[in-house]
């Protein structure tokens, strides 16, 4: 019995290697535009952990699945050659193995979790010789506001960043929960009203990326996406300089208008911004965004989308 078991395991190991290679290939193919094709250090580390953890577990579960199917097939009722042991229901040795395999795997994964959680804590500044660029992010119904405090400009639904520079995002929400997520740059984090979360990311090279909200926030959620342009630092400086020369000013009145619900908003650039606006929003000195207007719906109990459909 043990002999047949060990031969099954040996066979499983060979198949495992092939299956693991196949799985990695499938992941690589599928990730050609997503989180497995990172453009910066955070995304690279996150996705390496994702792949490593997958491989560690595949090494256990592929043999397990094969063992299950092999046992079910070998001991099928019609196979008279297999020995029937109707009372074999306990074996201390098997039990020891059965508890050890998952415990050892999870201890290993536990180490990955522990180290990874500290090293990739979103609040932790990135190691770099380049001083970070601070960007303040406000999620609104249903668009993103980006404030560049050092440059004194702001944008809506468009994020321009210098390549090779760590970006320190400080994130809040003016209405409901959202999650700030640029898949190819790495980690996401929630945007929450009355609170400020931090996220440190970097794009190593110029690229055009998609950013989005990854937490459902209402009717306009599907269009709550923004364009991310990672550009060479010189181009970024030129862009910021140019932005200061044109467009409107984001003062509190302009913000009040912006905070109202709207769908599918095209990118906007503001040439100047109230320097304490972010702080006023995140501490709620400016009250939370109004939500649906008018507050009293036309139809009893049923909401209507004020901004209409797109």
């Amino acid at each position, binding site marked *: *019995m043990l002999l047949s078991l060990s031969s099954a395991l040996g066979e499983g190991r060979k198949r495992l290697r092939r299956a693991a290679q196949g799985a990695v290939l499938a992941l690589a193919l*599928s*990730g050609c*535009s*997503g*989180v497995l094709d990172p453009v910066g250090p955070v*995304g690279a580390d996150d996705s390496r*952990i*994702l792949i490593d*953890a*997958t491989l560690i577990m595949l090494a256990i*579960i592929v043999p*397990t*699945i094969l063992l*299950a199917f092999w046992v*079910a097939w070998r*001991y*099928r*009722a019609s196979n008279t050659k297999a020995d029937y*042991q109707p009372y*074999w*229901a*306990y*074996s201390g040795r098997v039990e020891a193995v*059965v*508890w050890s*395999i*998952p*415990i050892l*795997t*999870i201890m290993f*994964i536990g180490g990955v*979790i522990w180290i*990874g*959680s500290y*090293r990739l*804590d979103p*609040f932790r500044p990135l190691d770099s010789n380049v001083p970070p660029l601070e960007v303040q992010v406000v999620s609104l119904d249903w668009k993103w506001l980006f404030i560049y405090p050092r440059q004194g400009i702001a944008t809506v639904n468009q994020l321009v960043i210098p390549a090779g520079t760590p970006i320190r995002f400080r994130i809040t929400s003016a*209405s409901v929960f959202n*999650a700030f997520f640029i*898949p190819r740059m790495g*980690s*996401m984090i929630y945007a929450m*009203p009355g609170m400020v979360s931090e996220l440190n990311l970097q794009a190593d090279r110029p690229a055009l990326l998609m950013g*989005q909200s990854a*937490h*459902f*926030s*209402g009717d306009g959620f599907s*269009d709550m996406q923004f364009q991310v342009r990672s550009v060479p630092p010189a181009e970024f400086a030129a862009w910021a300089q140019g932005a200061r020369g044109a467009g409107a000013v984001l003062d509190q009145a302009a913000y009040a208008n912006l905070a109202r619900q709207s769908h599918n908003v095209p990118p906007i650039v503001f040439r100047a911004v109230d320097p304490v606006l972010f702080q006023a929003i995140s501490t709620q000195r400016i*009250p939370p965004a109004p*939500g649906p207007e008018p*507050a*009293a719906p036309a*139809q*009893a*109990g*049923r909401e209507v*989308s004020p901004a209409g*459909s797109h």
Partner: protein
Amino acid sequence: MFGKLSWSAIPFDQPIPLITTLVLVLVILGVLGLVTFKGWWPYLWHEWITSVDHKRIGIMYILLGVVMLVRGFADAIMMRTQQAVAVNAPGYLEPEHYNQIFSAHGTIMIFFAAMPLVIGFMNFVTPLQLGVRDVAFPTMNSVSFWLTASGALLVNISLFIGEFARTGWLPYPPLSETAYSPGVGVDYYLWAVQISGIGTLMTGINFVTTVLKMRCPGMSYLRMPMFCWTTLASSLIIVAVFPILTATLAMLSLDRFFGWHFFTADAGGNPMMFMNLIWAWGHPEVYILVLPAFGIFSEIFSTFSGKPLFGYRSMVAATLFICIVSMMTWLHHFFTMGSGPAVNTAFGISTSIIAVGTGVKIYNWIFTMYGGRVRMSVPMLWSLGFIFTFVIGGMTGVLLAVPPADFLVHNSMFLVAHFHNVIVGGVVFALFAGLDFWFPKAFGFRLHEGWGKAAFWFSFFGFWITFTPLYILGLEGMTRRLQHVNVPEWQPMLILSAIGVGVIAIGVVCQVIMLLVSIIRRDQLRDESGDPWDGRSLEWATPSPAPFFNFATMPNVEGEEAYWGIKTRAIESQRLGPEPKYEPIEMPVHSPVGFFTAAFASVTGFALIWQIWWLAGLGFAAAIAGFVVFAWRDVHEFHVPAEEVAEVDRARRAARQKLLERLAAQEATA
């Protein structure tokens, strides 16, 4: 007078809910008409609606669960087709409608499909396996069922009067506060879940008591079948966490009704608290569902391998381990909220530790088959399909428990694929396996094997065709709950996923055909012996269908696998045990209190949703009055005369004698 309710609450301008409602109303009227025409009302009223028999209540739970499963599946079809067509296009469902559909899908599938099905099996099977005649509190059991049905009714009413929640299956504030959701949708959610949640809590109390206090002589804890252990563990979790759900939803209701500030974004409220509280219930909820599913698989692996469950004590330990650790993992649902590395590490590790318990179970099931004679009947196919599907779902679950990996795929289609992987692969497969397994015990005939196998294969492949693309889309960065998609590269995978739903739909049709064919051919499929699968636990000692008093005399259990012991002794000695002395049996009288209470609870819920305060007060008072009248009842029980008991049991003994002779003849030829 009527609060917020007026004619404009009815969506006359929206064809989909309107037509659905018309069809539903016609079907209901047709069924009611048929029942009236055939004169079935007295039978339905006396034998089912007012029944306190755990088997009848179990069957009604399962019926409710199956109906709601179909309703939830219809939502799933709409979601998958909408996303497949709405690429750089609006699709056919407006956001305000689509958002209701995914909210309703999740709410229905968890609260009104999976829960009634799991509780239905707990009801039907546990007392039979424990060798007793009913649960600890039979009338409370009936109240539990009808309150669950009341919640399901409110969810369905929202289709036609007003709207359902548009906030997801867990209404996260501040989106679910009146400032951002002024409609009645969230209120429908709150009161439907509150009313059914009270029913579930009572079920938990009932089954903890039943398993601890109501076992037949000799049925010590370590002789209980695995399913009873999982019922106990699941009920313990219910008792521990459902009060959290009730309190959390009550706080949200206070925010919405009276403008309080538990979870608002401003004025000192804290929405993060809602997320912590709701998941302190929500994660254990997953194990409330999956532990009884594990119990079902344990029974099936053992029975169809012709062997005792391998490592029984190990399995008990693993079950209780999961029961406890399940309550320590909730924060993994929001690693991305920024709790800091220490907190994330602690919850990441506690989450992966649960995989130890499930891993042990998987290996023990494999070794149960080892050295057995595995019969590939329909329940066994579902069980093997479960091992494959659940192990992969478990792997992606541990991936999501690694915070840096979760930072990439949190809230993505990868997550959606993961939890369907474990809940469909774990719970739904178990329920279909269990339906096939225990159907003969409930109705006296087996289900058609060929159609059952067809249903399995279509469901299994359909599942993987649906959800593999979602894993890939999640890795490509697609987030969940998108009413339309702005990235055209995602469309091929979305179309493939929609095709998968079509394949599952064929599986569903096969299940319906299986049921119809089985009913038509019930005489060929009849289970005369009461033991169609060569079973091992006490439910197979009863005739099929089991009499309302389950056991004529209390079984006396002398070891693990009580019925297997009785059967082995009978085969060895070539005769049944001596005929017992029959005595009258006391059984609880049927009671309309459950139906009555739930009817008024529905009225109360509806009145609260529309803020018709006088009606809410009236309904609540009437519901309580039902309990008061019940509490002062004079007659609790009725006697089944010894002759009736003897008659039923002699028929059973005759059938067993035939089975014994057949087995002896088989032995002789072998």
